[in-house]
């Protein structure tokens, strides 16, 4: 067995040292009723690398690879080009096979990287401090709500209707157990988000308002009025971003007054991966909130010789010290994904991120223009970054998406899939465009969408 270095000779010598007659004697504490008499039945025996690779390749071959077809899916997970050097770096054994940096003297690589990552995220979000990452955007969103309840000592969160439905669902699931109150809503299919309606829902018991930017329909609008309204009521503004590339083109949430900014970092460095592992980003605008933050924080300090170094810090917030009084039960971040994000962000830099954002937006504008010409199709959004909503003139988007897949086009995410059973939303299609989209891809989508709509009419 290729991963097990002990030989039978070794085992015999070790058992002798231990004073046991057999390995099974070491399992003497297992109750007899639970002792198995051999390998677990119903599972195959060990297999060669070649055989396993063949099996896994056959499973992989059953999936339609995004890069092999015109591809327009988004809704919280975006396909961007990841430079080859990102993967080279994260495969360095010293990064890949390191543990959480509890021994900082021999973990400065991970720690310095996290410190740089925190700085990158904080700046991207227009915030003072970011943490060392959480699981993903949706759990980060819940952590933001939970933090807001700690900070304000209130128990009610108001969710924008245009928050990603998975995120809203996670918040509602968690709140059910913590006893918090969640005021949510369905998205209104309008060219502009209904911020007035959202503001009207803020009351004196509100811990926070949660707004997505760009929102689930791809719309963007100035959130400053929401921030002001929230602050006026003593509530915090939580802004959720699922597409960090957008912030290379549009104002940061921090600039607009957000108190907590959270998001999904998958767009940079991480890839689609069928939904995970992804990367939860979490930042606060006001440094005074730092001690209420969830997750790991890396801080600067000095060593015994006065050299600069980094450590995990403020761990008195965390479960391994505070146990049931911790700010969250989290003890894993998304370290390797944070590294991938940080390397990609380093390669981009200020200039590259702005250029990347501009290119995404340019192609999205082209796509919106072209798709609006498809008979029966309208673009809902007034403004957008790289994703917008198409109204399909009464056709069910979910069926159209399946039909497009059969035509070899991954055409977008139907709101029907995201909000099953909600009739008002079933004719809308979310279309995301990135720098990986070609003008030819757009043309193919327009053509096939037109054909699909026509045929579905028959």
């Amino acid at each position, binding site marked *: 067995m290729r991963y097990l270095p002990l030989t039978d000779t070794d085992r015999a010598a070790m058992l002798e040292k231990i004073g*046991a007659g057999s390995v099974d004697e070491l399992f003497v504490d297992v109750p007899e009723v639970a002792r198995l008499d051999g390998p677990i039945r119903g599972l195959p025996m060990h297999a060669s690398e070649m055989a396993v690779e063949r099996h896994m390749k056959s*499973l992989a071959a059953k999936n339609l690879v995004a890069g092999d077809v015109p591809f327009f899916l988004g809704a919280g997970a975006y396909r961007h080009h990841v430079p080859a050097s990102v993967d*080279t770096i994260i495969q360095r054994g010293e990064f890949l*096979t*390191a543990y959480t940096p509890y021994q900082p*003297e021999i973990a400065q690589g991970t720690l310095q990287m996290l410190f740089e990552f*925190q700085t990158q995220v904080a700046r991207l979000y227009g915030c003072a401090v970011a943490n060392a990452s959480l699981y993903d955007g949706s759990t980060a969103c819940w952590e933001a709500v939970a933090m807001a309840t700690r900070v304000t000592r209130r128990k009610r969160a108001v969710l924008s209707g245009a928050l990603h439905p998975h995120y809203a669902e996670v918040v509602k699931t968690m709140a059910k157990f913590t006893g918090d109150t969640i005021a949510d809503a369905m998205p209104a299919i309008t060219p502009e988000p209904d911020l007035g309606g959202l503001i009207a829902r803020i009351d004196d018991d509100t811990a926070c308002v949660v707004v997505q930017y760009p929102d689930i329909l791809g719309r963007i609008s100035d959130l400053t009025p929401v921030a002001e309204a929230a602050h006026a009521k003593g509530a915090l503004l939580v802004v959720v971003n699922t597409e960090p590339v957008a*912030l290379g083109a549009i104002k940061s949430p921090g600039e607009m007054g957000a108190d907590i900014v959270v998001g999904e970092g998958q767009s940079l460095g991480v890839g689609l991966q069928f939904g995970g592992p992804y990367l939860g980003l979490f930042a606060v605008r006001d440094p005074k909130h730092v001690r209420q933050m969830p997750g790991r924080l890396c801080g600067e300090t000095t060593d015994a010789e006065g050299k600069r170094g980094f450590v995990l810090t403020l761990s008195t917030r965390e479960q*391994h010290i505070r146990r049931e009084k911790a700010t969250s039960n989290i003890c894993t971040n998304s370290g390797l994904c944070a590294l991938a994000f940080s390397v990609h962000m380093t390669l981009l830099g200020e200039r590259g991120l702005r250029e990347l954002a501009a290119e995404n937006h340019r192609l999205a504008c082209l796509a919106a223009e072209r798709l609006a010409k498809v008979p029966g199709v309208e673009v809902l959004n007034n*403004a957008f970054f790289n994703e917008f909503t198409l109204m399909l003139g009464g056709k069910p988007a979910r069926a159209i998406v399946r039909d497009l897949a059969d035509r070899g086009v991954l055409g977008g995410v139907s709101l029907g899939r995201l909000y099953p059973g909600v009739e008002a939303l079933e004719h809308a299609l979310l279309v995301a465009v990135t720098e990986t989209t070609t003008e030819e891809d757009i043309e193919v989508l327009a053509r096939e969408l037109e054909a699909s709509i026509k045929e579905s009419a028959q």
Partner: protein
Amino acid sequence: LEEPLLFEIGRADVTGVDLPAVDANAPTRLGGLARSEAIGLVGLTEPETVRHYTRLSRQNYGIDLGFFPLGSCTMKHNPRLNEKVARLPGFADIHPLAPQNSVQGALEVVAQLGEWLCKLTGMPGVAMSPKAGAHGELCGILAIRAAHEARGDAREVVLVPESAHGTNPATAAFANYRVEDIPATPEGRVDVAALKARLGPDVAAVMITNPNTCGLFEKDFREIADAVHAAGGYVYCDGANFNAIVGKVRPGDLGVDAMHINLHKTFSTPHGGGGPGSGPVVFSEALAPFAPLPFVRQDAEGTFYLVEEENREERGPSFGRMTAFHGQMGMFTRALTYMLSHGADGLKQVAEDAVLNANYILRSMEDILHAPFAASGPCMHEALFGDKDFTGGLSTLDVAKGLIDEGYHPMTVYFPLVVHGAMLVEPTETESKAAIDQFITAFRAVVERALAGDEELKQAPYYAPRRRLDETQAARKPVLSWQKPDD
């Protein structure tokens, strides 16, 4: 050479990607929100980037470099086939919301892995979406609360042993349970009598780690489980140490109702400097219906499909959604690859070798190092020691730092809390006898110094990239992001 911070070497106008320059006159549809302020990021070209991170990496220690006996964290070898498989475009480049007919292979991976987990644990249900071990614990506890509430039996208390991971009480508290400690016996196990005495109609669940964090198998687990069930409670098993018994013992046979499985520990997905993890949860019949959305099912024709309909009434008693999308696919492919590589026979060998290695270390050290539970019989996959015989004010921390100078990553220290100056050594099954013997020699040398009160040990490490770091300073005035010196 010291490696400067990215922000000290990067420049705002430098980039390591080639993209068209921004055309300031291009039409936009940004609704007046175009960014006007600088973001404050800096870039490096590719050569500089590769060098920056390569140099940083060399200040790290990883399993690839040497023995990493971090107890309870299970630092075992990460097979490279797993990395290769996870990167197949058919797994890495598919969207979580792609039409299900276009991702049948991905759904099959989720289903196959779930089936392996069920068979290995002898449990009928599984939830695949939890993002990490602690997230899995939460999943288990939420299912327990949902099950109690479904029968109108809200309970208030969760019992947790003193030796538990901090995540256990934190998780129970999150779910609005009051946490009560269960004491340990002098042999390092749960005090069964005390636990039984505490059971009653207010106890929703007990959370027990088995093998426990003292490295011992809870031999009365079945008895405990029966008592808990008799009192109307559920048994949560922390599966952090499942790697010690995988293929040898099925938790389902011990009466477990829910258990999370850290794929990175038992099935060797890489730790990556702190994550990502993945924490699927297996359930008993009683709890399986409450598992979170989404989950994968197979229809009569063999087509896989996702049940993910959060907004429908017919979703059943599921307690809801814990995360966007379906879980840690990239970890699933690695874990399944690992399982297929080992097979049922190999996984049994994994547990046996892990336990053998730990006992070998225990018996090779107990003559000079306090081993509080050595007399309790064999340990499981980790050997626990304490610092009570050290002199000259030396402590466990000094031994840990001394091991760094010997070229090793230290063991886990000061956990579990039930042993003074705990040192928890977990060799795992992927170390050779030669590597373990070499470690024992070094460990003994450092322990001898601690027993002798060697003052120099207080300043260790001497030969690491950094000497001891001032954690108090870091926490007192936190510096959490880089600022220009003159900012």
